[in-house]
């Protein structure tokens, strides 16, 4: 579809699609109510893909893509809407297969669990964001090791660690040693991630338990949940409570710290590799620039110190201010004194009026 159409065309198209989708959704729900069949197979694995509203949401996403101002928000909101609608669809299917009423117990818990897995943010999204393509080449070395952190890992760990402990030698000794360190860091990160994911799983499970408790309370209080949205909000409350419970525990603090530290160790080693590569190609590096910045900072401080002395001497000449003011002025000036307007003021420090 062309994106050059004006918004009027899109709106009409959207409305027509909406009508068709909801008609077919209604038919699907009725059919499922009669037969208890599941939704059709989907090639696209995103929540809601292949379901009646999917194409409509995609259309809307495309419509907004050119508008940067709202595009990201719309895409984000649509992603959540898509997940909610997909969840509603599944809930309707479950209800259809349960004599028309939404089930409770494990069936409902699984429904919620699926939704949370699809919708909650990837805890490692940021970390993977800086694994740029260039660094992916380096990753090839340790990824096979890191991937072993799953079930097969325990049995082979000792073997791998033995190889990683082998003392390198020869012309590439230093390179080999760094690679070994990187492999170890990679393994440590995979293990830290696994521990963290386990805790997130526990938080999710705890959320499910809280959800069931809340539902039971509603039943006991004679105030059943009467809408899908209300159910969703109750699940959000329960999920958050479950998460807070796990996230506030000492174990979470430790595992979280280990995860971030493991990420940083690997990131640092990657940075070192990149710097070596850059130096080999005659390119400036972060470390080199940091060295310049440190020298610059020292120079600024040294200049400030000198200016403070000059200011103190000048202040001592005419009728002195109170002792306390002078002392305080000197103390302040020591950090980076203000030069008098008549004298040269550093470009970085300017009075506007």
């Amino acid at each position: 579809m062309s994106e050059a159409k004006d918004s009027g065309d899109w709106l009409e198209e959207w409305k027509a699609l909406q009508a068709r989708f909801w008609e077919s959704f209604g038919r699907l729900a009725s059919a499922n109510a009669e037969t208890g069949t599941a939704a059709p197979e989907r090639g696209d694995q995103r929540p809601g893909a292949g379901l009646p509203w999917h194409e409509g949401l995609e259309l809307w996403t495309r419509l907004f893509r050119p508008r940067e101002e709202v595009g990201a928000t719309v895409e984000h909101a649509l992603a959540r809407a898509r997940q909610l609608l997909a969840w509603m669809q599944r809930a309707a299917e479950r209800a259809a297969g349960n004599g028309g009423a939404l089930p409770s117990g494990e069936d409902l818990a699984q429904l919620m669990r699926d939704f949370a897995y699809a919708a909650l943010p990837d805890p490692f999204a940021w970390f993977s964001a800086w694994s740029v393509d260039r660094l992916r080449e380096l990753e090839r070395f340790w990824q096979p090791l890191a991937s072993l952190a799953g079930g097969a890992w325990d049995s082979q760990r000792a073997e791998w660690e033995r190889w990683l402990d082998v003392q390198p030698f020869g012309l590439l000794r230093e390179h080999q040693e760094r690679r070994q360190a990187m492999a170890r860091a990679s393994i440590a990160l995979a293990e830290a991630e696994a521990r963290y994911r386990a805790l997130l799983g526990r938080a999710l499970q705890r959320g499910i338990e809280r959800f069931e408790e809340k539902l039971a309370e509603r039943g006991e209080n004679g105030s059943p949940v009467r809408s899908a949205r209300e159910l969703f909000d109750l699940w959000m409350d329960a999920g958050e409570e479950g998460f807070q419970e796990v996230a506030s525990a000492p174990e979470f603090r430790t595992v979280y710290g280990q995860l971030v530290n493991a990420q940083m160790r690997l990131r640092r080693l990657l940075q070192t590799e990149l710097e070596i590569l850059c130096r080999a190609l005659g390119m400036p590096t972060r470390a080199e620039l940091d060295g310049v910045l440190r020298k610059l900072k020292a120079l600024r401080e040294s200049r400030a110190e000198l200016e403070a002395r000059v200011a103190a001497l000048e202040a001592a000449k005419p009728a002195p201010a109170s002792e306390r003011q002078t002392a305080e002025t000197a103390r302040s000036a020591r950090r980076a004194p203000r030069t008098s307007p008549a004298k040269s003021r550093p470009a970085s420090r300017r009075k506007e009026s």
Partner: protein
Amino acid sequence: MRSIDITADQIVREAARYAHRLSQGMRNLLELEPVEVGCTPREAVYREDKLVLYRFRRDTPPTHRVPLLIVYALVNRPYMVDLQEDRSLVRNLLALGYEVYLIDWGYPDPSDRLLGLEDYILGYIDRCVTEVAARHGLQAIDFLGICQGGTFSLCYTALRPARVRRLITMVTPVDFHTPDNLLSHWTRELDVDLFVDTLGNVPADLMNFFYLTLKPYRLNLQKYVGLVDILDDREELANFLRMEKWIFDSPDQAGEAFRQFIRDFYQQNKLVKGEVEIGGERVDLRRIEQPVLNVYATQDHLVPPDASRALGRVVGSRDYSELAFRGGHIGIYVSSRAQREVAPGIDAWLRARAG
């Protein structure tokens, strides 16, 4: 009694209504003007590196002699205090007769990674105070420190008490080890030296990701599902987008300042112990003897009330007051309740200590 009373038909109808609202809201999103933030006219009166000191313009002469300097946190942009015309702490303070100045820290880049707390507190803040005080012919001015900026203001006041006349702190962490402080809990076993040595400046995206994961269900799911409820209200939609801009328009954090703040404040909780050192000078909150107003939010998940109220135990001032705001860390700036309560509360406190 059943705990769920929903049928398949109901869900279908509800989903249809939800999708209908989505489609109705589409026109509003298409037609919405780009949101703007920071509504009050202002002028830059001092610049240094990336810092800009602003004075907000007044239509009438001020009715208070002592100007108020707002010191905001490093972790978000300071226009939150002047987000839009009907949600502006600055505008409310101006209307109450104050001269208001604001420090905008700017966006640190990698060349700022070595900026430490000494540079911020005894350097930038001190020179801004000098500028504001000189403009008004005063030795000392009033401070309104917000969040981390409140912590900085406490440090500054303790180290340079002669420069601060009255101190107001708002949603300011003081005791970083209260049991309900998740932010502190998660940073406790972070190897902050490794972290900063590795990253240099701390990227804004990482900070934002961290904040979102503090409440993953509400901030990543519920909020955006709920957006559909306001899609047909253009004003609410604009408010939402404005808030989204503020939340994600975050500066990177200068590495050294971050290192010191995490290590000394979050991990070792040195402020309440009187052990923080800035530029070789020890920060002793007992040296703060001027009047102090501590404004905290009762539902603040980033700076829990107890973390803030600890100030009362450690500050030297005999004139210490608290103002409890019923709301959260963000609501204290932008909620309609905040417009009614925060600036008037500050004004009443300052008026009672005028002269």
